[in-house]
């Protein structure tokens, strides 16, 4: 049993490493924060990470397949602008609007998949191009930032469960006894976990998902094994679009608006790749998973949290941030020095 557990940890050493790094950073930050471990700080932390976490998850699935999706940030931005137009009105209209937003991103992802599979274009390039298209569409939808998403929704979705109950007046405005164990949990965290686990865990147990891993690990073997390759590729990009649109939708709710910000889209795409790597997923594909990337996104965010509690020269902050990122991604590399068979370095 011990032996098996050890083997399992070894097989997931990227994830384990990421988790430990995250825990160390997070606990250090919280203990240094004047209001560490309080609901307010947790709420703030989760708000900041949700959009990036969604985009990082969106990135993970194509990466597992051995491709990169350079359009995730752009799809997030596109759906953000869509949401800023349609998530308004009555609760029912808002719900429909949210679904429409998610459908837009999912459809865009599916289109990526179709272009990649039937056009036989490398994902990294295809999505570089479709990302530009997404940004163009976003700019048409929102030539300048704006939109008016319901303030209550914004407040309820970006706070703790208590505020959610209070805003919508259920569970005795958050004072009912049954809800007490949950009142301090940040809503954004719940949204993130429910969507990710709700979609990923079932998906993980399908042949399509297995095919995604298989393609990333050895595409020719997947082909010879008769796995549904085209379906899996399209599914991977479709899911990527879906998760990116979750990010866009949350961003819209969080900011009550839409913004076709090109640089922000680029930043999110690059940060999503960094999160995936920090989370222990191999860019070559085949191993890792979205949960790791979520943790990777947390790590990436926490690095900059420290600037708010430490006194560091503001003009040195970008340098420190860059160095820490470089060191963090290099940590995993220490393993390569222990590799005794140099040929293993090349796979």
């Amino acid at each position, binding site marked *: 049993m011990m032996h098996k557990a050890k083997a399992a940890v070894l097989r997931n050493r990227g994830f384990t490493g990421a988790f430990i790094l995250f825990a160390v950073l997070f606990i250090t930050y919280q203990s240094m924060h004047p209001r560490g471990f309080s609901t307010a700080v947790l709420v703030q932390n989760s708000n900041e990470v949700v959009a990036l976490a969604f985009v990082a998850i969106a990135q993970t699935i194509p990466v597992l397949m051995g491709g990169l999706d350079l359009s995730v940030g752009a799809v997030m931005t596109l759906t953000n602008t869509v949401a800023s137009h349609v998530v308004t009105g009555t609760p029912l209209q808002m719900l429909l609007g949210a679904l429409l937003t998610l459908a837009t991103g999912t459809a865009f992802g599916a289109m990526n998949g179709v272009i990649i599979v039937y056009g036989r274009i490398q994902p990294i390039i295809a999505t570089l191009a479709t990302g530009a298209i997404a940004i163009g569409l976003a700019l048409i939808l929102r030539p300048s930032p704006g939109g008016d998403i319901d303030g209550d929704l914004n407040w309820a979705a970006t706070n703790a469960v208590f505020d959610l109950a209070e805003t919508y007046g259920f569970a005795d405005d958050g004072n009912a006894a049954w809800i007490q164990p949950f009142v301090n949990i940040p809503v954004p965290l719940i949204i993130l976990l429910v969507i990710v686990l709700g979609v990923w865990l079932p998906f993980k147990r399908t042949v399509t998902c297995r095919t995604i891993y298989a393609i990333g690990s050895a595409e020719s073997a997947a082909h010879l094994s008769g796995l549904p390759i085209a379906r899996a590729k399209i599914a991977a990009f479709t899911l990527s679009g879906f998760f990116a649109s979750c990010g866009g939708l949350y961003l819209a709710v969080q900011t009550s608006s839409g913004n076709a910000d090109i*640089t922000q889209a680029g930043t999110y795409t690059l940060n999503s790749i960094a999160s995936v790597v920090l989370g222990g997923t191999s860019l070559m594909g085949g191993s890792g998973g979205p949960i790791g990337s979520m943790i990777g996104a947390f790590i990436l965010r926490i690095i900059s949290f420290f600037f*708010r509690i430490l006194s560091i020269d503001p003009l040195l902050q970008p340098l420190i941030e860059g160095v820490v990122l470089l060191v963090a991604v290099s940590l995993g590399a220490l393993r390569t020095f222990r590799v005794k068979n140099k040929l293993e370095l090349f796979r």
Partner: protein
Amino acid sequence: GPEIVEGPGVDPACFAPWSDETSFMQWEAREGPFRIAVVNGFVGNTWRIQMIKTAKAFAEDPSIADQISEFKVVSTGTDAPAQLGAIEDFINQGYDAIITIAVSPDGFDRVIRLADRNDVVLVPFDNVLDTDKVMQINEDQLAMGRMYSEFVLGELDANGVTGGKILEVRGLPGNSVDRDRSIGINEVIDAHDGDWEMVSVVGMWDDGSTQKVVADAIAVHGEFAAIVAQGGTNGMIQAIQDSGHPWVPVSGEAENGFRKALSEYSDDGLAGISIGQSPGLVAIAMKAAVSALEGNVMPQLISVPLPVATHDELEDGKNFWSDLPDNFFTVNEFPPCGVNISGPDIMAQDETDLN
């Protein structure tokens, strides 16, 4: 949160209300010294670096130093959640005032609500918010656009030019500052009775891009009667020079390089107006934050006078410096506000010398 009160506000010479309709705000007075944070967005350009240096230097300035007990500056990049998160973090940490350059004119509802609940003074400046719920500080971008056009049209009138092409070099697409300046520019030109054809290119407020698009435009359109640029003006001058285009009336930002060129070539016929967004705005924002915390009545929207200089008003060592780099922004000080940290002081010296 603040109360909406009747004017007039404190120290109107420094904190000038935007217009007659501007409302006034008042927070409950508290005891200093205060904890103040600046949450910047993007950091990789000279303007922002100069702004951050000004902020740090001003925090040490005797006129305000003893009212500030803790001062922190962070840059979040162009990432809305990160910027909102940083503001919220400082609210959680119990900071008294938070000064910010918003990455987007929208989307701050939540932190405004939080700031009000926690009695934190939130002061956006430069890129301000499309809201009247917070105290903000800016130069009037619309007026700036109008002045750009008025100046070049005035020059053209004086030279007896009644028609032709005018090149407009725009900034970052989707940005509200770009939008406002462009509206101002076009409004005035449309209203003029000359026969003008507008050609508009996107220079991203960046010297390189501007130089490229202006060179392109000159290559294709031949000659322009005037060039109205909002930024990247060093690049515009360079492109005019390299293409051999005659000097025509131009407008532009307040970079040192542009002013150097205006002064150098004004005898050859280069006429220009330089109006800049000043990195020194941050100092006024800090001052306004402290004033608000002290319980003074403050205008909701504070207008900082436009620092205008035309080619005939330039004076070396005063409003530009011929021996200093092109990129830094000449206008940094606002004497009516007691903000006297000049551009060369900020950029030419090491911080340690300054303090």
